[in-house]
Every structure is written in structure tokens, then in C-alpha cells.
């Protein structure tokens, strides 16, 4: 009996938008103090660590009481975390799912408890009525931004491009390739002459670039390099330097992700542009939840994050310092 009363009370408090836990810990400025659970996959990459840091920062700035659960790469831990969030009566749940399958049941429980769930960075194989929205980047768009930048940069001159693809068959590799091709499609002066996988890694990126350089007259025929991620670009830059060419001027370098190291290269004039895969997935999610709490506005089922283009004009050293502090 006690437990039922407790739970009802808790629900009422949360519905009133002033959960006891939150209100104690928060500054008086926070109007709609919310408790939000965040089930993160883990911290397997620098990008994910940055996503976690940014989510925490965003929550703090908005006066949200964030319950963070690291799933250590295990789906069972994520399901457990979601169930505990529901039992706790949080106001909303953010979920970065480790795999796409097997979420229907727990999402139904959340729906039944009227707790909105927002997917971050990846989507799930479940009916979209089971979650409020998914905040993800558009991989094709990222590639297109990179392609359009290059087309504008060479401005009508002939340009032969070499491409370092991501892991064969992976969706980022397929989509970023398609996007880039769309971006340069209207410019007949641009052509991709070689394209090969560098497995998203630095070492493989360097190796493949070395073979490109050998095959293309020591690199003299290559005008630009497009890499599906920054790590491969950093490896390739090394290879270009070893071949006696200047990356960034002899061969233009454009890549995707915007990890700190590419900004170092950019500051040194060795890379030209990168398209950001933003780790700030939680920001748009919190915006949506605020709007929903205010007047019940329901967001579209998919929210595309911004794919910002960074070039040498964006003070790369300052961006580098900023990114470093996020835990990349």
C-alpha cells in the first residue's frame, strides 16, 4: 500500500513539473525542472564521450536533473536502465540504442507510463508510435556538404579527386559516398578518379593514400582528397607529406566528423575543411521536450542535426581546444 501511495504522489509531483529530487538540487531560475534519464551505449569512442559530456552540460545549463546510465555496450543493461527510469517515474528518457532490434516491449512500457522516449544518434526497428522522435545526423547530407564545398573551392577548374571510403558496406560509408557524389554531380570539372576503403582508420588511410599517390604520377595528378572520416584524412596527410607534396595546397583535403586532430591539421594548413558530426544530439532533444512540456507540441518523427562545415577560417585552434575539453 505504501508503495502505491508513494508512486502516485511521485507521479503527481512530476506531472506538476516539479519533481522533488529536481527542485531541491536546482537553482530557482529553472522554471520547468525535469528529471530525464539518459541511457548511453558506453564510451567506446571519443565522439561518444563528447556526446555524454555535452548531454551533461546541456542538462546542467537547462536545470535538468539528468540520470545517466552507461550500458557498457550491452543491450540488456540498456533495457534494465529504461525499466528503472520508468519505475522511478522520470519525465522523459533519452536512448542511444546499442542495437536496432528488441526494443518494442520496453518502449511499450514507457508509452504506457506516458514517458516520452527520444532516440539519439541511432534509430531502432520498432513502430515509430513507440517513441517521440529520433535525433540523428543525415549521413548523405554530410557527404553533400563536403562535395559542395569542394566544388565551390576549385571554382570551375579541373579537379581529379581521390576518395578514402569507410568500412565497406557500412551505412556511413555508403551514405557519405552517395552524398558526396550528389554534391559534385552538377560540376563536370570534378571527377573521382580513385576510390578505395580505408576502414575508417588512420593507418589504413595512410596506406591507401600511399598507393593512390604511386598510381597517380607521384600525386601530381591529384587535386583533392575526400575522406569519409577525419582519422583517415589525418593518415593520408602523413602520406602526402612523405611523398614530398603539401597537403592543403598541392592536394586539398576535405573530410567528415570534426574530431579535434583535424583542427590541428587545419591550423597547420594541412587540411582544408571538415563537416561536423555533432556530438550535441541532446540539445535538440531537450528543445523538443521543453516545447512538449510547455504546450504539448509534438515534434516530427525525425530531427536532423546540423552538419556544420568548418574551414581554416573558423579559428581551428580555438575549436580544437573546445573539442578537447569535451573528452574526445
Amino acid at each position: 500500500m505504501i508503495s502505491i501511495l508513494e508512486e502516485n504522489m511521485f507521479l503527481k509531483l512530476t506531472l506538476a513539473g516539479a519533481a522533488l529530487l529536481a527542485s531541491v538540487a536546482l537553482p530557482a531560475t529553472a522554471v520547468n525542472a525535469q528529471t530525464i534519464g539518459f541511457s548511453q551505449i558506453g564510451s567506446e569512442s571519443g565522439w561518444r564521450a563528447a556526446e555524454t559530456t555535452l548531454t551533461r552540460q546541456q542538462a546542467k545549463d537547462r536545470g535538468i536533473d539528468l540520470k545517466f546510465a552507461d550500458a557498457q555496450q550491452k543491450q540488456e543493461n540498456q533495457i534494465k536502465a529504461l525499466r528503472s527510469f520508468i519505475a522511478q517515474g522520470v519525465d522523459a528518457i533519452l536512448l542511444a540504442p546499442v542495437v536496432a532490434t528488441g526494443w518494442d516491449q520496453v518502449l511499450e512500457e514507457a508509452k504506457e507510463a506516458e514517458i516520452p522516449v527520444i532516440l539519439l544518434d541511432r534509430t531502432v526497428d520498432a513502430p515509430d508510435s513507440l517513441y517521440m522522435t529520433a535525433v540523428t545526423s543525415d549521413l548523405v547530407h554530410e557527404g553533400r556538404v563536403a562535395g559542395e564545398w569542394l566544388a565551390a573551392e576549385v571554382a570551375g577548374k579541373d579537379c581529379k579527386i581521390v576518395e578514402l571510403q569507410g568500412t565497406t558496406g557500412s551505412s556511413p560509408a555508403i551514405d557519405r559516398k552517395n552524398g558526396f557524389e550528389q554534391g559534385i554531380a552538377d560540376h563536370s570539372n570534378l571527377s573521382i578518379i580513385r576510390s578505395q576503403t580505408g576502414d575508417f582508420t588512420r593507418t589504413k588511410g595512410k596506406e591507401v593514400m600511399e598507393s593512390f599517390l604511386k598510381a597517380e604520377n607521384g600525386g601530381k595528378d591529384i587535386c583533392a582528397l575526400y575522406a569519409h572520416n577525419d582519422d583517415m584524412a589525418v593518415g593520408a596527410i602523413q602520406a602526402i607529406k612523405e611523398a614530398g607534396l603539401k597537403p592543403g595546397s598541392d592536394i586539398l583535403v576535405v573530410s567528415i566528423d570534426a574530431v579535434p586532430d583535424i583542427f590541428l591539421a587545419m591550423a597547420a594548413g594541412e587540411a582544408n575543411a571538415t563537416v561536423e558530426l555533432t556530438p550535441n544530439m541532446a540539445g535538440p532533444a531537450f528543445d523538443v521536450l521543453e516545447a512538449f512540456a510547455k504546450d504539448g507540441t509534438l515534434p516530427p518523427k525525425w530531427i536532423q542535426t546540423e552538419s556544420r562545415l568548418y574551414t581554416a577560417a573558423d579559428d581551428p585552434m580555438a575549436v580544437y581546444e573546445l573539442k578537447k575539453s569535451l573528452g574526445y
Partner: protein
Amino acid sequence: MNPRYLPLLATIAIFILAYALCYSQYPNMLSTRVVGNLLTDNAYLGIAAIGMTFVILTGGIDLSIGSVIAFTGVFIAVLLANTSMHPLSVFALALLISTCFGALMGGIIHTLEMPPFIVTLAGMFLARGMAFVLSTESIPITHDFYDTLQDVFFRVPGKGRLTLIGIIMIVTVIVGVVLAHRTRFGSYVYALGGGLPAAKLMGVPVARTTVCVYALSGFMAGLSGIVFSMYTSAGYSLAAVGVELDAIAAVVIGGTLLTGGSGFMIGTLIGVLIMGLIQTYIIFDGTLSSWWTKIVIGGLLFTFILLQRGLVWVTSRARI
């Protein structure tokens, strides 16, 4: 009082104390919802741990169960996706395979007089490898029968749910208790754990018991795999990594002697619940790193090993 009961009592005391602590901080922890979650979320671990308790009672160990869980899940998912077989017959087939797999390991352990550690380690790699050969991707299970099974739950006052898989775990524990304490097989298991020469003198059929105990563990791992596939509606070759170690930890925290011969099924259940409780607390808190779960469990394990040593020492002195 029989000192054999001491570890079990310690386990129960720790569980009650821990729950009280959690409750004092988060009153919601005592809701039927959390209790229901504890049973549902730890069902696969509980079932596997019961099998593991039998193995450890004989003084053995079974490292293969995590892999067998993953293999069973992938096996079920592949069969359901590619054939028109009914899930129930797939379950039967999966249980048959996992039981035979366990029996085979038991047979090798007995006939070749190999340490169970090595044989089941080989079994662990073999089963995980087989799961990967079947599929490296996570395969969703979309069969209607699964939806029906997942919809089987009883609503408890306070919005809690007693799910089918939670019920399966409870039934497994009850069967485990009966098997351990009310059957000849159970007494053979305890006798075997008490020492091989003594067991032989008592007329325990050592070969049969060893094979049976690993077959039972295989069966439980298979059942756990079925439950896991219902839990996640998918079969994934990377699932349940390290579950064998969680199961061993639950057994030891549950008061079973790692050297065999002494322990209780109920203790194992409480061991599993303690581990689930720690996880729930950390999620409720929401600021602690989830790795604290491992640290606390590590601490508890040390405590119990010390407790067991202490007990052995006390009882041996009492005998003198």
C-alpha cells in the same frame, strides 16, 4: 545452529540491509514495479545461475553458459527467420542441443579427468564461435508467438508486472530447490562436492552424476537463452558476454562454497537479486558510474570468500 546456514543468512541479511538502504534514499525502490523489474531483468541470469549452482556444488565450474545463451538466441532467431517451424519446436531443439553440449563437456571432464575449467573454456569458445558462424548481425525475432509470450504478464497493484520470464525464473528456482534437496540426484551432487574418494565410498555413481550435472547446466543455459531471446526479441552473437562470471558471482554471493558440497538454491536467487539491486540503485542515483556495480560486486565476493574461509576454519577447529 548448523554453520552451513551462516553464509545463506549473511546473504539474506545483506539483501535486506541493502534494500532498506535503497528504500531510505529512494522510496520508489519498494514499488512493485521495481520488484517486478528485478525478476524480469535478471530472469536469464537467475536461470543460468541455478544451473551453475549445481555445477559449483560438485566442485566444478561451467564457463560456457554465456556463450551457450548467445548461441541459443542466434539459433532460435535464425531458425524462425528461415524456416516455418513453430517456436515451441525450435525451443525443444535448442534445449536438446544445449543439454547434449553440456553432457558432452561433462563426459569429457569425467573420462579424460580434465579440469572443468579447461573443458568448459573450450566449450565457451566453441559455442560463441558457432553463434558467430550462424550470424554476426543481430537478428530480430518477429514471430507472432513471441508477441503472445511477451504479452503474458500479471499486473500487480502499483503498476508492477510479473512477466512470463520472471515466472519461468521463479519456477526454475523451485525446481532447483526440489532437485537439490529432495532427490537422490541432489544428494549425489552434494556428496560429489564433499570429495571424490568419499563420494565413491558412499556409492555415488560419479560418472553419471558428473555428466548429468553439466547436462543440467547446459539445459539451464539453453533455457536462459530462450528467456534472453524473449527479453530482447532478437538473437545476437555478441549477447550475454561474461554472463558466466556474473552467474558464478551470484552463486558465491548466494553463499555456495566454491570448493563444493555446501550451498543453497535460494541463496543463488538472492545473490542474483542483490546484483540486480545494485544496478537499479546506480540507475536511480543517475550520477554514479555504472562500473560501480562491478566494484561493489567485487567487494561482496571478497567478503564472502573471507567468510567461507573463516567458516571452514571455525568448523575444523570445532571438530578438534
